[in-house]
């Protein structure tokens, strides 16, 4: 999941445009990480050294790794180590942006260093989806006054995991805002009833994006926002909310229940409790997740 937040960081820093990012997210399934990006990430080579090797390689018929070893930039063991590891998703995204000419190796190097220091992440943290670090990135990213950050970030961390698992990993979380109203073409809402208070959750977006989201989750070809599309988006919300309340029940012994979903079309919905609108930009459009009074 670091890839999604790395993408979001690049976007917020103005290093990529939303369009460039969406294209890279789309392209990255065909990307193979190359030694240069892996070595920059591991801190074995600087971007300057990588550029230099690429220049040398254009004049001689040798592999990048061999040139790097000959130049004394890295050892043979380091090359083997880099190539043997499964590349992390954020590196594949970085490599795609470099391949697409959006970032230079030097810009990638700087962005990666800034991102790691900004979030106090080590190389180890980025290997795998360490929950505590992810929770911190997510709670920092969605820090809002008057909101129980721990609760919201565990809801959102699970949401992003479920999006990756059931919808696709080609998305970028955008900055959230506190809202009093949701006014989108389509909305699926579900009340989550707790011991003391009730929360409200919803998925909203415009119709063409709504259909695309349903297509992804159902793995079926869909054309119009009919009852089946409503049921599909509604089932994703229900599935996610269900997994959330199961986690809360297991971890804190808190018992919550869900109500049947409701479907709203072209009608604004007002909220009187603290409500977060969390936009998530997929390559097919932006989907808004509403979390109220959680």
């Amino acid at each position, binding site marked *: 999941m670091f890839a999604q937040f790395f993408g979001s960081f690049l976007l917020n820093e103005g290093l990529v445009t939303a369009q460039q990012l969406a294209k890279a997210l789309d392209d990255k399934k065909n990307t193979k990480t190359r030694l240069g990006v892996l070595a920059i990430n591991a801190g074995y080579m600087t971007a300057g050294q990588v550029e230099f090797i690429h220049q040398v390689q254009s004049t001689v018929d040798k592999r990048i790794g061999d040139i790097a070893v000959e130049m004394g930039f890295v050892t043979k063991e380091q090359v083997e180590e880099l190539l043997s590891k499964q590349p992390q998703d954020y590196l594949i995204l970085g490599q795609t942006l470099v391949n697409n000419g959006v970032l230079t190796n030097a810009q990638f190097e700087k962005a990666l260093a800034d991102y790691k220091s900004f979030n106090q992440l080590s190389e180890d943290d980025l290997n795998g989806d360490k929950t505590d670090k992810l929770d911190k990135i997510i709670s920092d990213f969605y820090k809002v006054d008057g909101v129980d950050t721990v609760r919201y970030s565990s809801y959102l961390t699970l949401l992003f995991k479920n999006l990756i698992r*059931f919808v696709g990993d080609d998305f970028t979380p955008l900055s959230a805002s506190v809202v009093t109203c949701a006014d989108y073409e389509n909305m699926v809402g579900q009340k989550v009833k707790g011991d003391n208070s009730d929360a409200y959750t919803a998925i909203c977006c415009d119709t063409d994006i709504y259909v695309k989201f349903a297509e992804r989750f*159902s793995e079926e070809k869909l054309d119009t926002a009919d*009852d*089946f599309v409503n*049921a*599909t988006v*509604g*089932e994703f919300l*229900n*599935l996610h*909310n*269900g*997994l959330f*309340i*199961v986690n809360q*029940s*297991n971890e804190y012994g808190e*018992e*919550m*229940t*869900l*109500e*049947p979903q409701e479907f709203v079309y072209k009608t604004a919905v007002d909220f009187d409790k603290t409500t977060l609108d969390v936009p998530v930009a997929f390559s097919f459009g932006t989907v808004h997740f509403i979390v109220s009074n959680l």
Partner: protein
Amino acid sequence: MTINEMTVMICDDSMFARKKMKDYILSLGVAACYEAADGEQAVENYKEYKPSIVFMDIVMPKKTGIDAVKEIIEFDPDAKIVMASSVGTQNHLKEAINAGAFEFLQKPISNDQISKLIEMITKGV
């Protein structure tokens, strides 16, 4: 009972959830697959069709899956009902088992889980 003598009923308010499950269950070669979109319909359809196995959601309009299980069991104590729900909290689990369900599956439910249960029923477990 062989698989082509078996009948199945899926109770879920989500048309999407029903379709996904039904497509797979029909592909296994069962005799019939009935649907219900809420708890009331689930009870009515059970009485009418007496399916060999029922997959029952919990959160549904009109009548919850738990209440539907209680009524079905009252009508037929041997009914084979599997809860298939997104809300597998400890309370729901206890309620479902107390109501008479024999198994509880947390969504998302894999085809593998479905086929194992159907196989169990064919062996008369």
